């Protein structure tokens, strides 16, 4: 059997064993986990963030890709600043989505996550940082999946996608606030907390749609041209 197949088998076996171990541990201490579900949910979210970064570490990376991802993340971070006065309207989500759409899920995730982390070095790190990193990263990664499976997505489709991330980002960020600071949790209290942020989520979605409609097609064109430029190779035809 070739070494590569063996390696893959070993990896699958390790993953299955690990999952079995975690499940066994979970069923053994199910009551304890259910009692402290908020902490475990938090750990699970952080583990997801770490897994994305591990995946990035494992990939082969050229200097051009490093330069590209860092400059896009920088741009996503800097673009938060001039819009700080307008609540929830930030082109960061838009930039992350178009980067993911053009350069793939991994680049999209890194742009969102690093953009959130980098901008918070200047705007203030807080308990919100890992969540912003994860959710903006997910916006980029899902845009990457969209670009992969629906490369010819229409303008309307992309607008709906951007708007839904405006709401989704706010709802996911609310989750962290609600879980950590409101007790006991009931449906009506959750509903009220979400109603309180509804206006901001609408603004975020509105901003995303505006940015996409105003800039989307041209920015995507610029990025696609740049992608062609950095992946361009010349092959010598023999004879």
């Amino acid at each position: 059997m070739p070494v590569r197949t063996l390696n893959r088998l070993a990896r699958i076996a390790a993953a299955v064993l690990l999952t079995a171990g975690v499940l066994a541990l979970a069923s053994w201490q199910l009551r304890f986990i259910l009692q402290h579900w908020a902490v475990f949910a938090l750990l699970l979210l952080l583990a997801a963030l770490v897994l994305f970064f591990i995946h990035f570490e494992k990939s082969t990376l050229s200097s051009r890709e490093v330069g590209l991802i860092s400059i896009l993340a920088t741009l996503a971070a800097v673009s938060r600043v001039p819009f700080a006065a307008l609540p929830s309207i930030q082109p960061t989500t838009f930039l992350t989505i178009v980067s993911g759409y053009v350069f793939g899920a991994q680049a999209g995730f890194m742009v969102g996550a690093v953009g959130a982390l980098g901008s918070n070095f200047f705007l203030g790190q807080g308990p919100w940082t890992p969540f912003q990193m994860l959710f903006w990263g997910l916006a980029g990664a899902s845009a990457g999946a969209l670009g992969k499976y629906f490369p010819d997505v229409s303008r309307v489709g992309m607008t709906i996608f951007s708007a839904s991330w405006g709401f989704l980002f706010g709802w996911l960020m609310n989750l962290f606030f609600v879980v950590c600071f409101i007790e006991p949790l009931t449906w009506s209290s959750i509903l009220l907390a979400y109603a309180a942020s509804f206006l901001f989520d609408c603004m975020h979605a509105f901003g995303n749609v505006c940015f996409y409609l105003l800039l989307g097609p041209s920015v995507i064109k610029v990025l696609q041209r740049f992608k062609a430029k950095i992946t361009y190779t010349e092959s010598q035809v023999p004879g």
Partner: protein
Amino acid sequence: MLENFCYKHKGAFLQTLHPVAALTYLAALLLRPLIFNHPLYLVGILLASLLAAVVSDALGEWFSYFTVGLWMAALVLFLNPLLCQSGETVLLSLPSLPLIGRRFFTLEALCYGAAMGIRLLGVITAFALYNTLVHPDKVTGLLSRFAWKSALVVSMSTRMIPALARDLAAAREVQQMRGVDFSSGNLRQRLQKYGWLLELLLVSSLEGSLQTAEAMQARAFGCGPRSHYRHELVRPRDYLCFLSGLFALLLSVYARVRGYSAFSFYPKLAQPAAGNIVLFWFLMLMFCLLFPSILAWGWQRWPFLRSRI
């Protein structure tokens, strides 16, 4: 705007720590408000972080975080009784509203809201200390040992933010010179104007990224093991602060598991009197958290101690 929260080196004792020691200490400061809900512990942690800010000459930064945190804490304080209807002591009952029905303000929910507000302040001030005590490069330097690609992207991006912000301001000024008024027009027009700026910046910075890539290639990026420019010193102060942070973390987890820090708000507030055992654990934990601040104070005042650590 960018200079408000970013790290400024003031030569304070806690700023000279090795990142592992500083992060362990800050992790202890952060974990405690997250896992405790006893008001005594919550207030104690807030005081410990305030003292650390005072000895590091970071009171200004701490205060700007504190004011933001205060607004959020006030929001939690008032939202909690409104959202949560548990508790036996009703202070105020609001008239019936459509959709949400009748609402009661209870003392227990108000106290829980206050405790959560202090918890939020504790968490936020721990982050304020992180911002003022730990240089971002030290953290990325530490991360680069485990995940050098991610650390490289993060440090490059963080380094480029001020430069790109300057470019953005310059581009904005050029546009203003050409007659674009960024403060006029409706929301759509304003977004359009900022959009042009963004597009301009995108094109120029993408070209810049190619130059960065060439410079990296010229410095043999990806060939052989990573080289380091800076090595962090490990001094006795790092061991001391690391150990006190570690002890604080372990003791907190132990106290939480054994229930020494438990406090029940619902359905009726528990007796506020602190038992001996609660007080003992509280003092132990406070000593661990205050130790680095005491050391910092000694380091400033006592040359002998300064030369030893």
